[in-house]
């Protein structure tokens, strides 16, 4: 099981990174905040026994996707967000209110909902072998459909971004 000190350290990193994304004025700092969050989350995945997902999260998410984001941010050379001061304050207040409302409702639902009594659960270990076996037997069709989705994404991005085909 996860040691409390490890959990709270990683949780702190995640929350700080997420707050950085939401609050940073400069887009590059926002991207770096998300990288911090995703790295801490993959460390937590290792503690929870999801080894394959931790590796994929670092490689695909914190690696490829975030580099793509950084490229676009630097390519577009965005000025820091400018908003009317009054409007920005109303928007922030409304956003925080919405976030608190969501947390309140989620907590109510979670507390009201009781998990079925904990049977003697066998430790799951999300190693590459175990996840791969499951992926290519039970979830073979969704796996193939996911590859089609990625192909659609690639073609869509090329068609959109290219000036003239």
């Amino acid at each position, binding site marked *: 099981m996860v040691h409390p000190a490890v959990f709270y350290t990683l949780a702190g990193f995640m929350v700080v990174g997420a707050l950085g994304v939401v609050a940073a004025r400069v887009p590059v700092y926002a991207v770096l905040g*998300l990288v911090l969050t995703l790295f801490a989350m993959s460390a937590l995945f290792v503690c929870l026994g999801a080894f394959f997902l931790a590796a994929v999260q670092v490689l695909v998410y914190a690696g490829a996707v975030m580099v793509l984001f950084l490229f676009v941010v630097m390519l577009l050379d965005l000025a820091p967000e400018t908003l009317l001061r009054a409007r920005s304050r109303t928007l922030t207040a409304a956003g925080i209110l919405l976030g608190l409302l969501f947390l309140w409702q989620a907590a109510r639902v979670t507390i009201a909902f009781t998990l079925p009594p904990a049977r003697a659960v066998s430790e799951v270990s999300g190693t590459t072998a175990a*996840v791969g076996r499951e992926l290519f037997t039970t979830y073979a069709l969704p796996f193939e459909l996911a590859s089609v989705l990625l192909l659609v994404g690639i073609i869509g991005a090329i068609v959109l971004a290219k000036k003239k085909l």
Partner: protein
Amino acid sequence: MITLGHLLALSGILFAIGLVGVVTRRNVLLILLSLEILLASSNLAFVAFSRARGDLSGQIMVFFVLVVAAAEVTVGLAIAVLLARQTGKLNADEMRDLKW
């Protein structure tokens, strides 16, 4: 002792932060980034349930969420680049029509 409740609370807090980001940020790129926080926080909830129930299905679901997120980011960023090229800015408030 870290229980399922702790992990779900962390996931909920991250989701709430991402939600605030989606609502308050006006830059399209930063809205996309905040969406990534939403997806990542739901991934954490999936892994937490997968561990609590001793079932690998939750982790498989996270794998598919990652695939969908990657596809979403490529198309979303392509649209953002296109918008920046056409209009010169990325402010969501100024995008009232999808035609140009």
